[in-house]
C-alpha cells in the first residue's frame, strides 16, 4: 500500500484543486464521464503495466486500439440489399425489352418495376408485360436504348402516416425500405420499426407522390460474437507475435512494438481505405457494454457513507499502528497512510454535506401591480406559493411542478392584485416554499465495473499466483530467474499477450463508447498515456516493480488532469500536454525521492542498532 501513497495523495490534491477551480467538475454528468474515461484508460494501463514489470515496453497499444476500434465496426458493418433488384444488361427501346443479368425471381406479369441507374430519360416506373427467362418486356417501354442500370421490383404501398400497408413485403424489423416516387426516382430511405402482417411501421412518413417502395434486407457482415472473437483474437495474436519476437529472437521490445505501432495503424488504414468506421445506431445492445449505467447512486448518501467509513477506518488504522509501533516511537512516516485516508474521508464527508439539497422557504417582496421573479434553488421540482393576510397564518394558494434543472431557475410570482383577483383575501405577504428537490444521483458506468473486475483479476494474478511472482522476479533479474528454473521466455510472452489483449478490450470499449473511429487518429498517443499512468503508479521502467492499484490511480490521475485543463477557464486547452507532462514529471520525481528516503530509513533500521543508542 505504501507504494501508492504518493500517487494517491497527488490524485487527491489535483481532484480537490479542480473541484475548487471549476463548478462543473463535481457535476454528476462530468463525474460519470470522468469515471468512464478513467476506467477505459485504466484497463489499457494495467495491460502495459505487466509488460513494464518484465522490464519491457509496448508502444503499439494505440495502434492495437485503432485496429480493434476500426476493425469491430468494419466487421459489424451492415449492408442493405434491395429485394428483387437485378442488374440490367441492355435496354431495347423499340420493343420495350430489357435483357437482365439473371432471371428475375418472383417477377410476374402485371408487377411494377422501377428502372434506375441507366440513362436519365429511362428512369421511371413501368408495368411488366411478359417475362421469359432473362428478358422482360415492359408495357410502355423506356425511351432510348441503353446498356446498364438496374431493375427493381416495386411493392405497392398504401400510405397512412408512418404506417404503410405493403402486401407480401417479407421484411423484418430493422430492415429498411426505399420509397419510389411516381416519376420513378428513388426517394428517402426509412427504417422498419414494427411489422404487423402487411402493415409496416416506418421511421419516416412516405412522400406525397408515392408510387410504391422496395424493401432493403439488412445483411450484417458478421454476427456480434464472431466480430468480437476476431478482433480480440487478433489482439491476442499480436501479443503472442510480439512476445515470440522478444523472448525467442531476443529483439528489443522498443523496436518490436515501435514497428507494431506503425504496422497496425497502417494495416487499419489500408483495409478501411482510411474511411471513418462507425456503428451508426445498428447495435444499441452491444453499445451498452460501454455506455450503460449499472446503478444510479444518490450522491449525498453515497458520499456520506464512504466518507464516514474512511474516517472511522483511518482512525482505527492509526490507533492500530500506534499501538504496534509504540506510542513513543511512532513517526509521521508510519502514519502517512491513515492520515491521507483520514483527509480523504473528511473531504468526502464535506462534499456529501455540500450536496444535501435543503428545502427552503423563499421570502418575496410582494408588489401591488408588478410580477416578481424568484430564483429557485437547483433541481427544484415542486414549489408552493403561500400568502398571508396581516396577523393571520400562511395559506397555500397553489402548488406547482417545476421542471428539474441543474441551473438556477426563475419562477414568476404574480402581483398581489392578480392574486386577489383569483382568490379573494387581504393578502399582503407572499412566500415561495420549495416542497421537493430532486436528489443528486450519479450513475455507475459499466466500464468502471469492467475495470474493477480486470484490476481484481490482475492484482490476484500478480500477487497471489506463482506466475505473478515469476514476472516480478524476472523483471528484477532475468538471469537469476532463469537460474532458478523459471521459464522466462514463457513469462515474457505471457506479459505481451496480456498487454495486447487488454489493449484489444480497451479498443472495443473505446469504439463502443465513442461510436465511431477514424483510422488516422483513433487511439493516437494512448500508449503514452498508458505508459505514463503505469509509471506514475509506481512501475519502474527497469522492471520488477509495480502495483495494480497504483496503475489504476495513475490512469485516473491522467484523466482528472485532462478534465481540469478542459474545465478550468484560465487554463488554455492547447497547453494540455505541457501541464500533463509537468505533473507526471513532478510525480515521478516525488516518488523517487520518497523511495530514496524509505530506503535510507530501511538501511538505518538494518545496520543501525548503534544509531538508535547514539541519538
Amino acid at each position: 500500500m505504501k507504494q501508492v501513497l504518493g500517487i494517491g495523495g497527488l490524485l487527491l490534491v489535483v481532484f480537490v484543486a479542480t473541484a475548487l477551480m471549476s463548478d462543473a467538475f463535481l457535476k454528476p454528468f462530468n463525474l460519470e464521464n470522468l469515471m468512464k474515461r478513467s476506467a477505459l484508460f485504466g484497463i489499457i494501463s494495467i495491460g502495459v503495466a505487466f509488460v513494464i514489470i518484465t522490464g519491457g515496453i509496448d508502444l503499439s497499444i494505440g495502434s492495437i486500439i485503432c485496429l480493434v476500434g476500426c476493425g469491430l465496426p468494419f466487421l459489424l458493418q451492415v449492408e442493405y440489399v434491395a429485394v428483387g433488384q437485378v442488374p440490367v444488361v441492355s435496354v431495347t427501346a423499340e420493343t420495350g425489352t430489357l435483357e437482365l443479368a439473371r432471371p428475375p425471381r418472383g417477377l410476374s406479369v402485371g408487377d411494377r418495376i422501377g428502372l434506375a441507374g441507366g440513362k436519365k430519360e429511362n428512369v421511371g416506373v413501368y408495368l411488366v408485360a411478359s417475362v421469359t427467362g432473362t428478358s422482360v418486356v415492359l408495357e410502355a417501354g423506356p425511351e432510348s436504348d441503353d446498356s446498364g442500370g438496374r431493375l427493381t421490383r416495386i411493392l405497392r404501398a398504401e400510405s397512412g402516416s408512418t404506417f404503410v400497408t405493403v402486401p407480401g413485403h417479407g421484411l423484418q424489423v430493422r430492415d429498411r425500405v426505399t420509397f419510389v416516387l411516381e416519376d420513378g426516382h428513388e426517394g428517402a430511405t426509412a427504417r422498419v420499426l414494427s411489422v404487423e402482417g402487411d402493415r409496416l411501421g416506418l421511421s419516416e412518413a412516405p412522400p406525397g407522390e408515392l408510387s410504391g417502395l422496395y424493401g432493403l434486407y439488412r445483411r450484417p457482415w458478421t454476427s456480434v460474437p464472431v466480430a468480437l472473437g476476431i478482433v480480440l483474437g487478433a489482439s491476442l495474436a499480436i501479443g503472442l507475435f510480439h512476445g515470440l519476437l522478444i523472448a525467442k529472437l531476443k529483439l528489443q521490445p522498443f523496436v518490436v512494438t515501435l514497428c507494431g505501432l506503425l504496422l497496425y495503424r497502417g494495416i487499419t488504414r489500408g483495409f478501411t481505405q482510411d474511411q471513418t468506421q462507425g456503428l451508426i445506431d445498428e447495435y444499441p445492445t452491444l453499445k451498452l457494454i460501454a455506455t450503460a449505467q449499472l446503478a444510479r447512486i444518490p450522491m449525498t448518501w453515497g458520499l456520506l457513507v464512504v466518507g464516514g467509513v474512511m474516517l472511522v477506518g483511518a482512525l482505527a488504522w492509526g490507533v492500530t499502528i500506534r499501538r504496534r509501533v509504540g506510542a513513543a516511537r511512532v513517526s509521521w512516516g508510519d502514519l502517512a497512510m491513515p492520515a491521507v485516508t483520514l483527509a480523504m474521508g473528511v473531504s468526502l464527508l464535506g462534499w456529501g454535506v455540500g450536496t444535501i439539497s435543503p428545502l427552503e422557504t423563499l421570502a418575496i417582496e410582494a408588489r401591488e401591480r408588478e410580477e416578481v421573479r424568484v430564483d429557485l434553488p437547483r433541481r427544484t421540482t415542486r414549489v408552493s406559493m403561500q400568502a398571508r393576510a396581516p396577523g393571520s397564518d400562511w395559506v397555500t394558494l397553489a402548488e406547482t411542478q417545476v421542471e428539474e434543472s441543474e441551473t438556477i431557475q426563475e419562477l414568476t410570482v404574480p402581483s398581489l392584485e392578480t392574486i386577489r383577483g383569483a382568490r379573494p383575501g387581504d393578502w399582503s405577504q407572499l412566500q415561495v416554499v420549495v416542497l421537493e428537490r430532486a436528489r443528486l444521483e450519479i450513475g455507475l458506468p459499466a466500464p468502471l465495473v469492467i475495470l474493477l473486475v480486470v484490476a481484481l483479476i490482475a492484482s490476484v494474478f500478480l500477487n497471489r499466483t506463482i506466475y505473478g511472482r515469476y514476472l516480478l522476479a524476472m523483471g528484477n533479474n532475468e538471469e537469476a530467474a532463469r537460474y532458478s528454473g523459471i521459464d522466462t521466455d514463457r513469462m515474457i510472452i505471457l506479459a505481451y499477450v496480456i498487454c495486447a489483449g487488454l489493449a484489444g478490450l480497451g479498443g472495443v470499449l473505446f469504439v463502443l463508447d465513442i461510436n465511431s473511429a477514424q483510422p488516422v487518429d483513433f487511439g493516437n498517443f494512448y500508449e503514452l498515456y498508458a505508459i505514463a499512468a503505469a509509471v506514475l503508479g509506481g512501475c519502474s521502467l527497469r522492471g520488477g516493480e509495480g502495483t495494480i492499484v497504483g496503475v489504476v490511480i495513475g490512469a485516473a490521475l491522467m484523466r482528472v488532469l485532462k478534465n481540469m485543463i478542459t474545465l478550468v477557464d484560465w487554463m488554455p486547452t492547447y497547453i494540455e500536454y505541457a501541464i500533463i507532462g509537468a505533473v507526471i514529471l513532478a510525480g515521478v520525481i516525488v516518488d523517487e525521492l520518497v523511495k530514496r528516503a524509505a530506503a535510507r530509513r530501511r538501511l538505518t533500521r538494518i545496520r543501525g542498532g548503534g544509531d538508535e543508542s547514539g541519538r
Partner: protein
Amino acid sequence: MTDATREPRPPRLLDVRAVSKRFPGVLALDRVDLVLDPGEVLGVIGENGAGKSTLMKILAGVQPADGGLVLVDGAPIEIDGVEAALGAGIALIHQELNLADNLDIAANIFLGREPCRGPGRVLIDRGRMLSDSRQFLEMVGLDRDPSTVVSELTIGRQQMVEIAKALSVDARVLIMDEPTSSLSQSEAESLFEVIGQLRDAGKSIVYISHRLGEVTRLADRVTVLRDGRNAGELDRQEISHDAMVRLMVGRDIEEWDRESDREPGEVVLEARGLRSPAFPAHRLDFALRQGEIVGLAGLVGAGRTELLQTLFGITPALDGHLRIGDIPLLPQDPRAAISAGMALVPEDRKQQGLVLGMAVRENISLPSLKRDSGPGGFLDRGRERESCGRMIERLRVKTLGPEQVVQYLSGGNQQKVVLGKWLAMEPRVLLMDEPTRGIDVGAKQEIYALMEELAARGVAILFVSSEMEEVLRMSDRALVMHEGRIAGELDRDVLGGSEGEEAVMQLATGAASARAMEADG
C-alpha cells in the same frame, strides 16, 4: 616538504589519522589510523564490513570522509575527489576492474587524459599515446601491443592494464582491492612478481585481500580492521595466518578439521562423452557419488564454470550422455536439471544467484514455488513463510526477517540465501561455483560446515574453486581442468599430502599431461 627537521625520521609517505565515516545508521569507520612508507607493501585485512573498502574509497577520493586527517609527505591534504587523490599520487585499482573493454589498451590507460595535438589541441595524439603506453606496459611486464582491445585480454592482463594506468598518472601509492579474486593461480603469480618490482622501484602498495596466504607472502606489514576500528598491526616477523585470523575475528577460530571417514555411496551423476559448447573439441567423462565432495580445480578459463553451466542446462551440451540417478537426461534448460534433482550455486551471486530487489522469503522460495503452490498456480503463502523461516534458522542467516530485501545483506548472508533456496529443493546433486568468493572468514567456515553436513546426508557436491586451500581442504576428490578438458583426477591422499598443491598446479597448467605425453613418446 622537509619536515624532517621536526621529526626524528622522514615523514611517512601516507599518514591517515583518525578518519571516520558514517553511513546512515552505521559508523563504517571509527577514527581509523593507517601509515605507509615508501617502498612498502601494506596488507590491509579484515572481515567483510570491517571498513577496508570504505577506507580505501576515502583515500582514492571516491567518498568523502566525515572526519580525520590525511597527510601525504607530512602535509595535510584534502581529498575531495578522484582528481585530488590522483594529484596526491594515490590510485585505487578496483575489485571489479574499471576498464572500457571495447577500447584498446592505450585508450584505457589515457582515458580522460589523452595527449592532444593540432590546432586547439582537439586531435588525439595517437602516436604518443601508443609509445607512452608501451613504456608503462613494460613496467608491469605485459607484453602486448597497446592497440589491443581490452576485451581480448584475460582478466589477469586487464588488471595489469589497470596498474599501468595507475603508473601513468605517476601514482606513488597503489591501492589494490582484492586483486586476485578473479585471477588464476599463474596470473596471480605474475601479479605478485609485478608487485615486487614496483616495491623495489619505490612504489608503495596497499594490498587488501581475504586470502591470508597472499598477504603473508607479500606484506611487509599488516593493518587489521575490525568493525570499523583498528584491531591491530603486525610487523613482518609477526605475520602469520593464526595471528591475522585472531585479530580479524577477535577470537581464535578452531582449525578446520576434516571428517575423513566419509564413505561415498552410489553414483548419482555420470557424464560420458559430454561436449559443452564452450569447448566443443573435448569430450568429458566423470562421475559423482552420493555423499561425495568433489573439487573442480583449474585456472580461470579452463572451462570449470562452463562445465557446471552445461550440467545445469544453461548452456546445453552439444551431445554426449548424462545420467542423473537412473534418469538419462541432457538438460536443455535449468528447469530440466532442477527437476532431475540438481542445483547450482552460481559464480555471480548478485547477477545469477539472487533477485537483489526482492525479499529473503521471495528469493528462498523462488525455485520451490511451483512445487509448493496450490491448484491454478495460487501461492501457498503460509507454507512459503514457514519453510523460509525454517531455512533462515537452519542456515543462521543474519537478517531482520524474511521480508528483508536481500540487497541489504552482507555477502556471506546473501550466499546463505542462495544456498537456502536450493536446499529447499532437496537436491541430490549440488553444483557450487566459487561458493566462498568475497565472503568473510566466519561465513566461510559456516559454508564449509554446511557442505560437510549435506555430504553426510548423501548429497553429491561438485564445487569450483580458485582458492587452492579450499580445494585441498574440502575435496574428497578433485578434478583438475586444463583448457576445456579434465587433465586429471587427484584423490584424498594426494590432496591431503604435502605435494597436493603442486600436483593440482601441474595438472592445471598442463605440465603434468605434457610430461605424460613425453613419457608416452
